[in-house]
């Protein structure tokens, strides 16, 4: 018997039992669709995280200084020196601390960052109105400040803060610029802060040591070599006290988050694939019922010359046609699901490898769970099968 004949035969008996076939297919359809959709959602999340992190800059290295005292801290000048390392495009040292900010009768405790003009380029933090802190401000220790939207809202309400004078720990500062809204990140709100020239900040916060240094690489490919050089430089400066500082690679963070979301989506897909397995057992169940029901048919076929492999092929093809059809429907359903998810705000990205994989998987389930009933059918003795009713 030819293969095409077998497929036609299988198709015929599937058509003869539409409702049953549909219900059998449902298990595999749900399995395939949920595996593909969940993986697509995982891919979407990873892509979104990557895009967001790229906004922060994947070519950014940050150093946090936790040490105190002359040996294990870094002066502004020393921090600027780090910018001379190979492959570093720009450097931005930051002094930070908390101060009491006061405007008229309003009083808030707020983070102050002493920065240099390079901060804008390195950290990608811009102003929406007014002007940025300039080199002259730093050189002359000007008491000017940039204000975050959060703090501006608290102190000024809806009024324009630019040009107003506020008091930081009793010192008068003039607000020259309003920062763009940043939103929140892992560290909390980025909008609740005030930024001043680093020289003024050093005096305001009464510290010479910088708390963080941001290094921007020329190319995010040589991040690792810069990190290594930086590590060496800092170890030398801190005389081996490696607990006094902490280097943080933005690319590492992206990688960590992507791997977390990949693990999550793989776990979900794994759970979903259990439903594929259950669907496969459903196919086996139905095929076994079908073999019993069609014992006489098997007998008739054998009496007119069907060999064992003809019967085996017939039932196996039936299982395969059911699982293959379910695979196709499952892919279509997941396309629909991805479309609606993306429209409703959850990015779902379908990839060909997931589709191919779940399709192959559903076929494999058809074979695995179809072979046992098919084999049972093919082994029936023609005399017994004919006598059955």
């Amino acid at each position, binding site marked *: 018997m030819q293969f095409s004949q077998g497929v036609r035969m299988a198709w015929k008996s599937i058509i003869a039992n539409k409702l049953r076939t549909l219900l059998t297919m449902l298990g595999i359809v749900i399995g395939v669709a949920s595996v593909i959709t969940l993986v697509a959602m995982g891919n979407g999340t990873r892509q979104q995280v990557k895009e967001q992190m790229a906004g922060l800059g994947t070519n950014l290295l940050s150093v946090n200084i936790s040490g105190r005292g002359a040996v294990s801290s870094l002066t502004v000048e020393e921090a600027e020196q780090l910018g001379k390392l190979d492959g570093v495009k720009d450097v931005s040292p930051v002094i930070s601390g908390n101060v009491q900010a006061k405007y008229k009768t309003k009083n808030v405790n707020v983070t102050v960052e002493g920065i240099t003009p390079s901060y804008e380029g390195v950290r990608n933090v811009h102003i929406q109105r007014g002007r940025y802190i300039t080199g002259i401000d730093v050189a002359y220790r000007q008491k000017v400040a940039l204000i975050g939207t959060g703090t501006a809202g608290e102190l000024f309400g809806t009024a324009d803060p630019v040009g107003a004078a506020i008091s930081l720990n009793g010192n008068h500062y003039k607000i020259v610029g309003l920062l763009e809204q940043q939103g929140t990140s892992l560290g909390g709100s980025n909008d609740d802060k005030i930024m001043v020239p680093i020289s003024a900040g050093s005096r305001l916060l009464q510290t010479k040591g910088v708390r963080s240094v941001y290094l921007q690489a020329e190319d995010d490919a040589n991040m690792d070599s810069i990190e290594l050089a930086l590590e060496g430089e800092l170890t030398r400066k801190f005389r081996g006290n490696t607990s006094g500082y902490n280097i943080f690679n933005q690319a590492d963070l992206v990688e960590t988050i992507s791997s977390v979301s990949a693990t999550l989506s793989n776990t979900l897909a794994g759970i979903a694939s259990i439903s594929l397995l259950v669907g496969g057992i459903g196919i086996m169940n139905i095929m076994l019922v079908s073999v019993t029901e069609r014992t*006489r048919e098997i007998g*008739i076929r054998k009496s*007119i010359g069907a060999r064992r492999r003809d019967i085996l092929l017939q039932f196996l093809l039936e299982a395969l046609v059911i699982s293959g059809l379910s695979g196709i429907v499952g892919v279509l359903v997941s396309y629909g699901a991805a479309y609606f998810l993306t429209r409703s705000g959850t990015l779902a990205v379908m990839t060909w490898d997931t589709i191919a994989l779940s399709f192959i998987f559903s076929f494999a389930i058809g074979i695995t769970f179809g072979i046992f009933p098919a084999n049972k059918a093919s082994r029936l003795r023609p005399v017994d099968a004919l006598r059955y009713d």
Partner: protein
Amino acid sequence: MSRHAEIELKDIVKTYHMGAETLTTLKKVSLRVYRGEFMAIVGPSGSGKSTLMNIIGCLDTPSEGQYIIDGQDASRMSDNQLARVRNEKIGFIFQSFHLLSQLSAFENVELPLVYRGMPAKQRREIASGMLAQMGLADKQNHKPRQLSGGQQQRVAIARALASQPSILLADEPTGALDTKTGKEVMGIFQQLHRQGHTIILITHDPGVAEAAESVIRITDGIITEERRGNHAIQPGSPDGLEEHYRQ
């Protein structure tokens, strides 16, 4: 006409094991059926005639003895070889027709040829021809359900003939039919016999058996009577069956 043995059974024994009990349904049965012979095997139910038919039809294998069909020893064949013999050398006609209900009359008739691996064009010619010969040319696409009992049995006969078998094996072919259609079907067998087909007919009805050329009676697994008719049936002559129904 020189007589050539189409099938030959030598000391066939068939035993069944049911738990501790052993049941012997055929006790050293020996039988020859010649080419072109129309033989009826009669016997009450439980006599072993169905077992004999299953062995002749290669649906079952004997426990002991030798079964030779068309010069080949079928008692020592593998499953696949037996399937091939059933496909090429035997045409079955069953009491309850045994047509596949989801296939059309045409598809039922071509099925043995499908299993033989014959190309579609050739199959179509043979199957259509057989159905036409059975007077069912206009019923090709009907499902068995849409046909009368007599028509269904004619489809079954067409299916049996499609593979051009050495022998036609009919198991109570009129058992599920009324007297009139039964007579028609027996007429077809008479005609096939005249065309030179070897026919073995199993029945418990002695009246039906009379249409046959030879009659074998089987009781309790032993052949108790063997009557070989030497009369050659002349085309057009009144035959035994018609006499039977006339009575």
